[in-house]
């Protein structure tokens, strides 16, 4: 088995022996489910045709409290326990450690998203929602979630302290989030475009509407690539101190 998968598998198992994954998934599903019920009731009262558009916005937003608790442990705890020393003196490369950890967090994300397919199934059963836009929405949710996880992996590489890792992750994500608001405050057209291009939430909106725009997909994928690359570099710099 390739090194990355060995690491990912161990990490995934360790997610489910500790309560972290269960708590994060449960909290996410409870809040998302509650909002789903409210939204559907509202739609039914106004006679609107049911869709998951609003629900996707909610679910992306909720990732903010879902991702950091799942990623904070990944590298910070290995550094605190000294197990990182063992990993990095095994015939494994630094980037493989980072990628393996990231894959494990994606696994938990994927599992959670698959559970929320229930919403789509309900809409299919009791309404006539289109599958296409829903698929796009779920793809967007997964990409956005992956990007947030990669940011968490990066902040977890930077410290031995899980709480600091989580706080840094939330702060970074919020900063990316408010860039959209910043774009409305600047008058310079280029600056507005740059801020809009960098803003996190804005890149998810097309997906819920059922539009898969390469620009958005590239944004999330490059965010992941950048964060994981930096995380690897951070691990390497520890060796130079």
């Amino acid at each position, binding site marked *: 088995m390739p090194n990355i998968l*060995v690491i990912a598998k*161990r990490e995934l*198992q360790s997610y489910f022996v500790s309560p972290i994954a269960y708590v994060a998934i449960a909290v996410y599903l409870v809040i998302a489910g509650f909002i789903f019920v409210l939204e559907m009731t509202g739609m039914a009262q106004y006679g609107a045709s049911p869709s998951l558009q609003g629900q996707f916005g909610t679910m992306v937003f909720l990732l903010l409290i879902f991702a950091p608790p799942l990623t904070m442990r990944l590298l910070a705890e290995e550094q605190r326990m*000294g197990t990182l*020393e063992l*990993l*990095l*003196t*095994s015939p494994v490369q630094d980037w493989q450690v980072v990628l393996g950890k990231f894959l494990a967090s994606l696994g938990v994300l994927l599992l959670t998203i698959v559970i929320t397919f229930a919403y789509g199934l309900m809409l299919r059963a009791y309404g006539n929602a289109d599958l296409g836009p829903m698929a796009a929405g779920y793809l967007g949710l997964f990409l956005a979630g992956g990007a947030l996880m990669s940011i968490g992996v990066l902040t977890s590489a930077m410290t031995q302290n899980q709480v600091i890792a989580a706080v840094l992750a939330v702060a970074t994500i919020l900063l990316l989030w408010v860039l959209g608001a910043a774009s409305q405050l600047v008058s310079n057209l280029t600056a507005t475009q740059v801020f809009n291009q960098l803003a996190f939430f804005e890149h998810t909106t097309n997906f819920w509407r059922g539009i898969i725009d390469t620009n958005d997909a590239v944004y999330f994928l490059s965010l992941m690539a950048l964060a994981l690359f930096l995380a690897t570099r951070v691990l390497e710099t520890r*060796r130079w101190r």
Partner: protein
Amino acid sequence: MIDVEGLTKIYGPRAAVQDLTFHVEKGEIVGFLGPNGAGKTTTMRMLTGYLPPTDGRASIAGFDTFSQSLDVRKRIGYMPETVPLYPEMAVADYLDFMAALRHVPDRKAAVQRAMQVTHIEDRARMNIGKLSKGFRQRVGLAQALVHDPDVLILDEPTIGLDPRQIIEVRELIKSLAGQRTILLSTHILPEVEQICTRVLIIHRGKLVAEDTPQNLGARLHGSARIGLQIAGDGPALQKALVAVPGVLSVETGENGRYQVSVASDQDVRAQLAAAVVNGGWGLLELAPVGMSLEEIFLQLTKEEPVAAEEQTD
């Protein structure tokens, strides 16, 4: 098997390891002896490729520990000082994970063998977090052995164990010798005497002595001391002790305790006892005073003017 040439590691203004040169042949068990902070762990981390050296080079089995790190890591088993374990994993699963990372072909058999050698088979399904310190230490050792490496690097393998466990781990390390090359660090002198074929003494990042335990012992016992407890005192007693041939000096302690410095290569215990008894005093206790590591270092650094200079910082 292990070749270290001018290895140096500098942290800011301080040199943790300075111009270290030594060689370990295949099949040797070499003890790396030194007080805490002498640079043992730093050296081992450089050998395992965890830290890059500031200067100099090290190679294991002909592979450079920095530029060919992956080739080195495949061939070593490393047990860091704080045994790195995942508390939430079962012993066998942890060993299986480590075996998978090192590409062991038949993992099941390898894990079984490593547990057998370290006597932890009956704990295979237990969570590591629930194990006692002694068992964790053995799991750490099993982890270093699971891929059957040519070179074992063990950082303080017996630290924090109770006396019985220490003996077990020492026996275990001795039984591993032969095909494997072992470098282990410790700050316990008898440990080195019992298991190592050669000793490297490191102090303030520098190699201050390199010898077999026997030679080192002889060299140190050169100024052995004998402690006595005698019922009675007075100048006459002191005079009688000094009069024994081979005695260099006598120090008086409390409660009738005396420490006698004896010239090298002479055993004057019988003569000392006779002198005391013949003089009409009561001999309560007579025993050689073991040299503490601190004393050894004082002595070794006295011999090495360069190291003595270091003392002034």
